[in-house]
């Protein structure tokens, strides 16, 4: 039985809002710089650079907050992903999204007080937050301070490698954003998850049995 619960505390919602705004701006300005063309301007280059730099620094601090908050609070437990049985859980969740939900099957890993993310969500969140974002921040800082980047690695410009890494991670985070927003429509109602991340109140299952069996 689903119930409305205060699922997202204010600190998480503010952090999420800052992240969302920063990442949207970074993607837009990033695309403007990557596909810059004097004839087809999305955001004028010098403005794109300024906005990208400032937003990137804000995102870096926001990420620092995430790391510290996860280190000192219980929030980190939502990101724990035991490798044992991981594949089965991923297949189960993917099967639900691909077929189960259309057949009216029950969610294999419904949201509870103890489980904010289903296994597939968790995998993408861990990849985004512990691989994608740190790499994009480190490479971004390298591009912000190009003199700090090694001149060449195996004969290839160090700054070019940094940029390729930055752009590749930017692509990855952009894809994550598209999937993240779309999957958010698969909730209690299509808008329930969006309302939840703004108001803090989301629909969760009352039972915790399946949470225990998963982890």
């Amino acid at each position: 039985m689903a119930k409305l619960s205060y699922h997202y505390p204010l600190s998480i919602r503010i952090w999420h809002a800052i992240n969302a705004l920063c990442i949207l701006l970074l993607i837009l300005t990033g695309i403007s710089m990557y596909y810059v063309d004097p004839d087809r301007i999305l955001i004028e280059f010098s403005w794109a650079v300024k906005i990208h730099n400032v937003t990137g620094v804000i995102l870096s601090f926001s990420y620092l907050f995430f790391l510290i908050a996860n280190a000192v609070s219980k929030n980190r437990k939502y990101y724990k992903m035991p490798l044992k049985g991981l594949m089965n859980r991923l297949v189960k969740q993917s099967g639900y999204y691909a077929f189960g939900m259309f057949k009216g099957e029950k969610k294999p890993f419904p949201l509870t007080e103890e489980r904010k993310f289903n296994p597939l969500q968790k995998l993408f969140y861990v990849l985004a937050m512990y691989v994608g974002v740190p790499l994009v921040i480190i490479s971004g800082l390298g591009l912000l301070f190009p003199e700090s980047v090694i001149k060449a690695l195996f004969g290839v410009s160090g700054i070019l490698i940094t940029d390729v890494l930055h752009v590749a991670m930017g692509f990855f985070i952009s894809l994550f954003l598209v999937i993240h927003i779309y999957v958010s429509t698969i909730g209690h109602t299509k808008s329930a998850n969006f309302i939840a991340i703004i108001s803090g109140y989301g629909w969760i299952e009352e039972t915790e049995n399946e949470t225990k069996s998963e982890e």
Partner: protein
Amino acid sequence: MKKITRILLSIFLAFSAGTMAQSDSATSDLNLDAYRQVNDFVDENESCFECHANTKYVLIDEFFGREIMQSMCKDKIVTRDEYYSMVHNSFACLDCHAYEYEEFPHPLEARLEQPYQCIDCHGYDENYAHFRFEDIEMEYMESVHAKGIENFSCWKCHDPHAYKLTIGADGTSISDGIAYNNDICLSCHSDFSRFELLTEREEINILETHDWLPNQATHFGSVRCIECHTSISDSTFVAHHVLSSDKAVKKCAECHSKNSILMASLYKHEAKESRRRYGFINGVILNEAYVIGANRNTFLSTIGIILFLATLGGVSIHIIARIIYKK
């Protein structure tokens, strides 16, 4: 006035008939043989280098038996190493300078000689046709230097005693070439003592006039001044039509785009074959250079676009299924 000057000069020359110059430093320990590998006039040139390769020289008045130590003007110092490694390293000094320079003190006529310009020797010469000196001369004549400054000449930028080919020359890295080329501009534009010899303008602070430029130090180290301050042309090796500052490139996208103007200037001669086949990115990988917006990794872009379209496709199919199944 000129007449008085000449009379005074004649009197001075008459009195100084017994005057000679002598270098303060010994030349015996010089390895002139190394220079003889590239130049047949090393010994003749030594009569000039004896003084002009040093920071000071001794002026001797044999008549009165007096000696005076003089410092050599900075602009008149020519080091042997630089001279014998420049583009004209096989020359005798007197190939370009008047024979009157053999006299000391050098007569005024010699010191006021009109130096040869590049076009005087290289113009319409098949051996140098690939440099297109005629086009360079035409571009130069249109430049702010030629039009706006009296007595400007090739040698104000290209040190006749040390000039080297850099960008486009074998064995020179792009970054070294950029530094060398920018030093040429900065030798006047950041040295007021030289700048004021040619213009009445007030001193320019390059850092302040370029304070609009993001990552200023990176830009200064990564591109030549002429990339933005000349009218880029495809006909010459190096653009010589230097523009007035109000016409300089200020739009970022002119360089930071797929059709970057750097393609027609700084990277014009590099990795042409690679660029022809794969575009800018692969060319500049070989150059160890990087320009945001211009370096579009075609492989990365393709993979990115495929993944993005695949994601949108997957999402679209899912949306359609949800509409059909009313989920």
